[in-house]
């Protein structure tokens, strides 16, 4: 299946010996000139790129305390060396968080510190050369910015911040990554990552309404661009398009229907994910976030709810207020923005949803904490809510649930291996290798508890697992969406399922109640 070695799943996760330059060759395609310029970056590598890069680094050092402090405080203690899923999967020494950071830090030292200027060899400082730039391009695109290292660092040093800075410097000299920049350009031009225009969205939603009616006998609406609706739903565009994402979208629609609220999607802001974060560009992240503000204002909604998407939720929860706020025109009674899991959780707590867990009895589930939710954002307004709430929603939807090993869930969760702008076919090798630690934990619960399915609340996790599960002997449909489980279990009022449960269905299976 693959033209590279797929890591073997052992009984326990083993920490490999570091090897040099094993995955140096793995680098994404570079951005085309017009995608660069669409985002405000130079079309190709500028002539004086070294000066531009050093200047940019100086600029970022003055703008981001995280970068400044993180570059100074690392003591090479090694606590992070065995924490990165890409290191565990590839054995490449530069995928140890500290070594990845050193690629930038050694240049920082050379140009910005006393010791690096006068004693470069002693402190490990080097000039910025083409070789270093190539290493940056490879290894800062072998980081999914999952922040697992930041949990375990005694100083909280977060490689995500370092790799974002490195990517921004590379964009600034004209060496951008194709996947991220093409997608951001597509959002600017068409409105979402997948480039789905308004008519295609409308068509898809209509089809989904028909599917739900066929299945339940209830007409559940999936409105688009409906002015005056109470809730604007922002969801990753994968939800309109791919499996299992689209089953999750039907789940949200059923929950909204059952809650009796008015809601709408927006073709102007038909994308929750904000790839501006991946490339570390505050400007682009802000521009993308402002589209959501504009859509909310244009449609006159009172609330904003986000669908299942990890990075989107991080930007929404942690940054939206900062980037595109203040949201004083929305109803302040509700969290701004709110996550669909929070919405469903509240309804469940108020006993407003009737759930028939047996509908999911063909599955035994485990939950994959998506890294940008687990380590990057909260939920529910209480510490650790992001761990509790999705699990509560899953457990309300099914009878069989087991967690994976403690060291691999909650804030210690392993990344799916495809986040941070790596979900592209040209990086398949690193994606498969990076998925290994998660697959190893999945294998363990599969064997111990007979787990059959993995539920996730991130579009990238879902897409990544659908692609990588088969490499490890699983099947692609083992990844499910959390609201897909809700969708299966929810008993809509007046539905065929309700009639069947209450024994009020006649011989034709039609509901008697009106």
């Amino acid at each position: 299946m693959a033209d590279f070695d797929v890591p073997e799943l052992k009984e326990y996760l083993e920490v490999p010996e570091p090897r040099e330059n094993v995955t140096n060759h793995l680098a994404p395609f570079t951005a085309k000139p017009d995608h660069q310029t669409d985002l405000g970056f130079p079309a190709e590598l500028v002539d004086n790129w070294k000066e531009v890069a050093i200047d940019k680094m100086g600029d970022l050092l003055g703008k981001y305390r995280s970068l400044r402090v993180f570059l100074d405080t690392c003591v090479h203690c090694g606590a992070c060396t065995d924490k990165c899923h890409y290191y565990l999967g590839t054995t490449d020494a530069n995928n140890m968080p500290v070594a990845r950071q050193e690629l930038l830090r050694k240049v920082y030292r050379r140009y910005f510190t006393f010791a690096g200027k006068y004693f470069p060899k002693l402190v490990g400082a080097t000039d910025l050369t083409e070789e270093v730039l190539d290493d940056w391009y490879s290894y800062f695109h072998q980081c999914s910015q999952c922040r697992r290292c930041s949990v375990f660092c005694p100083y909280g040093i977060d490689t995500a911040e370092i790799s974002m800075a490195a990517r921004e410097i590379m964009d600034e000299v004209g060496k951008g990554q194709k996947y991220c920049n093409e997608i951001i350009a597509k959002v600017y031009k068409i409105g979402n990552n997948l480039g789905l225009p308004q008519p295609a969205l409308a068509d898809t939603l209509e089809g989904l309404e028909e599917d739900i009616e066929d299945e339940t006998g209830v007409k559940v609406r999936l409105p688009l661009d409906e002015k005056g609706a109470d809730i604007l739903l922002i969801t990753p565009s994968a939800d309109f398009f791919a499996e299992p994402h689209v089953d999750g979208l039907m789940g949200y629609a059923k929950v909204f229907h059952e809650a009796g609220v008015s809601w709408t999607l927006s073709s102007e802001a038909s994308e929750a994910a904000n790839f501006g974060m991946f490339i570390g560009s505050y400007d682009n992240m802000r521009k993308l976030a402002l589209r959501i503000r504009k859509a909310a204002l244009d449609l006159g909604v009172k609330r904003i709810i986000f669908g299942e998407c990890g990075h989107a939720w991080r930007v929404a929860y942690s940054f939206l207020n900062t980037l595109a706020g203040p949201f004083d025109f929305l109803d302040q009674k509700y969290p701004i923005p709110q996550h669909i899991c929070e919405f469903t959780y509240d309804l469940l707590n108020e006993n407003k949803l009737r759930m028939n867990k047996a509908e999911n009895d063909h599955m035994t589930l485990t939950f994959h904490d998506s890294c940008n939710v687990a380590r990057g954002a909260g939920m529910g307004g209480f510490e650790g809510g992001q761990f509790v709430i999705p699990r509560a929603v899953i457990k309300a939807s099914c009878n069989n649930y087991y967690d994976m090993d403690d060291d691999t869930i909650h804030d210690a969760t392993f990344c799916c291996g495809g986040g941070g702008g790596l979900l592209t076919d040209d990086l398949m090798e690193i994606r498969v290798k990076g998925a290994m630690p998660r697959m190893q934990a999945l294998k363990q619960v599969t064997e111990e508890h007979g787990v059959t399915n993995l539920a996730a609340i991130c579009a990238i996790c879902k897409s990544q697992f659908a692609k990588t599960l088969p490499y490890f002997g699983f099947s692609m449909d083992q990844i499910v969406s959390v609201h897909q489980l809700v969708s299966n279990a929810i008993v809509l009022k007046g539905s065929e399922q309700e009639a069947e449960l209450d024994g009020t269905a006649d011989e034709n299976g039609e509901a008697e109640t009106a």
Partner: protein
Amino acid sequence: MSLVSALYVGLFYFATVFLVVGLVLRIKTYAQTPAPLKIPTMPAPRTETGVALRMFREVAFFESLFRSNKWIWLFGILFHFGMLLVLLRHLRYFTEPVWFWVNWVQPFGKYAAFAMLAGLLGLWARRFLVARIRYISTPSDHLMLALLVGIAMSGIGMSFLVHTDIISVKAFFLGMLHFSPQSLPTDPLLLVHLGLVATLMIIFPISKLLHAPGVFFSPTRNQTDSSREQRHIADWAKELEAGER
């Protein structure tokens, strides 16, 4: 006053000024650099008190390090808290009369030097024995450990083997504090010990030892989880907004 004494007077004045000014400048830079986005590593405390507690647990117990690696944690705790007791004990050379609690610390402080040394040797051994740590070590990492081991061993030597004239040492430092320099005993162990200490003071503000003040400025640890409730915007980011709305 001998030439050696004069050299050490000059060295310590220089080292003290370099350390203090260097640290103040660095801390000022950290404090003045904006943190434009809320990036606490979650789950994060939702109140300022919670953040203070989280930081206290990090600094006092090395909480995150305990989760990551028990060996590094053990050696790190032995070294840092051994050194803390040793430093507190050393206050008796800089104060007159000696504060009562420094006298209490004195016996513990003397033996804490061994804990400090054991921690350092453990940390150093890892740099040779564990391939991953060997890979990420630079010459300066080794030199810094060598420096600290040198300080600890020369100190232990004076405490337990070849005693120095501590009355004169104290007179020397009190003299420096009052800007009326006194002579320093010239036994080699003391000169080595003090020379290494002064070197450490000088490299402190220009090296990775900045992790000491830096940890308090780490946005992933010192920020509250309140981004939905409060807008958190840096001045440079406000400028982007100006004139737009």
